[in-house]
């Protein structure tokens, strides 16, 4: 299958603007700005069925259509905060195919009438930020950004903004708070960013991978996009495969490809002759899918899309597929995930701030003690007091691996025999 997103794997040096131009670069932006009304661009993306690739899977064109035409200015912010453990797809896009991403961001800006767009990058993507600054400068030099593009009245400037090490800034309202120069703490919603976003103005926040799809959709059309993937989950997705596999990495596949394809056809299976024990399809935020001999075929043959993964008691999310083999104990796994969420909790709401703190203490005690039944029930209770009761999804997601591990892998939490 040809690459539509990770095109640098087919075309070397695609991050050179001349190479990008030679391979159809910026034709979609030109087409949109010179031949399409903004509303038509929104319609095309709506019809394509493109869904947000940051994890929530919300229909992109629908999100764009929410911005009211009575409040100005409008903004588009690209969410390049990629911090979900097991996710490294946006990074490869920005490193290898930065202009397609920027072109998608520019088209999104045109579609919603924004004259300024931001790329919010996690601080650790320091070098990527510098590269994007250079790319933006090249686009300005080439008249692809700035005043009156392609001889029209439309002007656009793009800016990068670096975060500084906070997973919560991947949550769109926390991201906007951070961009405004405050601590990255989520806002109460409603109002949603589409109505009151950056600087209280109508704002679209889109994931990097989502935006990278836009030039291809404008160029090839909505119908083409719908011909890939599945009916409810059209298009291609970059699956980030990590953990106990032979060939971890990014794999661009149509939505609906199966776990079997990803793990075995592409990922080379599990190393060291071990077997798959658990799959976390949405990074650390996942419920852990149990895989043992009786369940293996069912799991492996499940299509990876937004509809079918929930049938396995998990979610597709950002398609950050972490594979856990049978040499690993789930109590160790959830100690890692809870540590992550406790570290990253922004502290604003009590169930998450205090709940992650207590889950961490409980798991430590469970792992150290021989007799842990009282603590197991307490951990379940605490997780139950967090889930569904927080200001944002971070708190909810902090409980997914915990609850699923306790329910689906009870043998990993039985009486422990201290290793000699």
């Amino acid at each position, binding site marked *: 299958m040809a690459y539509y997103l990770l095109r640098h794997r087919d075309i070397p040096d695609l991050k050179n603007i001349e190479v990008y131009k030679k391979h159809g670069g910026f034709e979609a932006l030109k087409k949109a700005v010179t031949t399409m009304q903004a509303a038509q661009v929104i319609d095309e993306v709506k019809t394509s069925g493109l869904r947000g690739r940051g994890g929530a899977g919300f229909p992109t064109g629908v999100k764009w259509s929410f911005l009211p035409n009575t409040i100005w200015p409008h903004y588009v912010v690209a969410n390049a905060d*990629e*911090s*979900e*453990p*097991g*996710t*490294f797809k*946006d*990074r490869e896009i920005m490193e290898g195919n930065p202009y397609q991403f920027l072109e998608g961001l520019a088209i999104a800006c045109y579609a919603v009438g924004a004259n300024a767009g931001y790329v919010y990058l*996690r*601080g*650790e*993507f*320091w*070098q990527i930020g510098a590269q994007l600054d250079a790319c933006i400068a090249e686009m300005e030099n080439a008249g692809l950004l700035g005043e009156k593009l392609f001889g029209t009245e439309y002007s656009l400037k793009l*800016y990068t*903004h*670096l*975060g*500084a*090490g*906070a*997973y919560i800034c991947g949550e769109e309202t926390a991201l906007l708070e*951070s*961009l*405004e*120069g*405050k*601590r*990255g703490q989520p806002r109460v919603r409603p109002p949603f960013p589409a109505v009151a976003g950056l*600087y209280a103005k109508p704002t679209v926040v889109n994931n990097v991978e989502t935006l990278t799809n836009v030039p291809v959709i404008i160029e090839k059309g909505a119908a083409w996009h719908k011909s890939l993937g599945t009916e409810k989950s059209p298009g291609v997705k970059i699956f*980030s*495969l*990590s*953990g*106990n596999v032979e060939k*971890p*990495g*990014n794999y661009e596949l149509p939505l609906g490809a199966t776990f079997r394809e990803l793990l075995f056809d592409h990922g080379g299976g599990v190393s060291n002759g071990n077997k798959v024990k658990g799959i976390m399809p949405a990074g*650390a935020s996942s419920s852990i899918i149990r895989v043992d001999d009786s369940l293996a075929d069912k799991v492996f043959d499940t299509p990876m899309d937004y509809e079918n993964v929930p049938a396995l008691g998990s979610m597709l999310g950002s398609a950050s597929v*972490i*594979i*856990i083999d049978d040499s*690993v104990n789930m109590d160790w*796994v959830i100690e*890692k*995930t809870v540590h*992550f969420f406790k*570290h*990253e909790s*922004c502290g604003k709401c009590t169930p998450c701030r205090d709940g992650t703190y207590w889950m961490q203490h409980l798991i430590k005690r469970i792992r150290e003690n021989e007799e842990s039944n009282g603590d197991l029930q307490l951990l379940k209770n605490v997780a139950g007091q967090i889930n569904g009761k927080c200001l944002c999804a971070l708190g909810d997601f902090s409980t997914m691996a915990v609850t699923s591990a306790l329910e689906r892998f009870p043998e990993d939490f039985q009486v422990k025999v201290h290793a000699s």
Partner: protein
Amino acid sequence: MLAEKYPEEVKQIFTKYPADRKRSAVMPLLYLAQREEGYVTQAAMQDIADLIEVDVTEVASIVGFYTLYHDEKAGKYRIQVCNDLPCALRGADKFLDSLCSRLGIQVGETTPDGVVTLEAVMCLAACDKAPMFQIQSGAGLTYHEDMTVDKTMELINTLKGK
């Protein structure tokens, strides 16, 4: 201070945001303040507060909230090893332990010559290239992936030579 030391950069930072939204500049200004010594001094926080017209407490709250801003001096190079779940599944904990042994320090500590501080950090979006780390210095952040303990010690020796 910052406006005198780095006039062009300070000016460029403020052009990115609307003129009545100076507060947005706090994050890039903090990176600028960290450039020389790898941490933000009280004086720098006050300077930034003046530049963006907020109280110094607001600036301090940003430094406290975000992991990559530091209010205390540490080693010249912070070696920040990811030992989050995906890296740990591929040996990151053992890698970090070995580095501690070879350097003779615990996680969070600095080598006696003041060159290297070893830290454990959360996922760096490099899960397919574990074990790995990033190095943070005043100059910024660089990634070092598919690392071994020997390669890391070699790299540290090069840094010590600088």
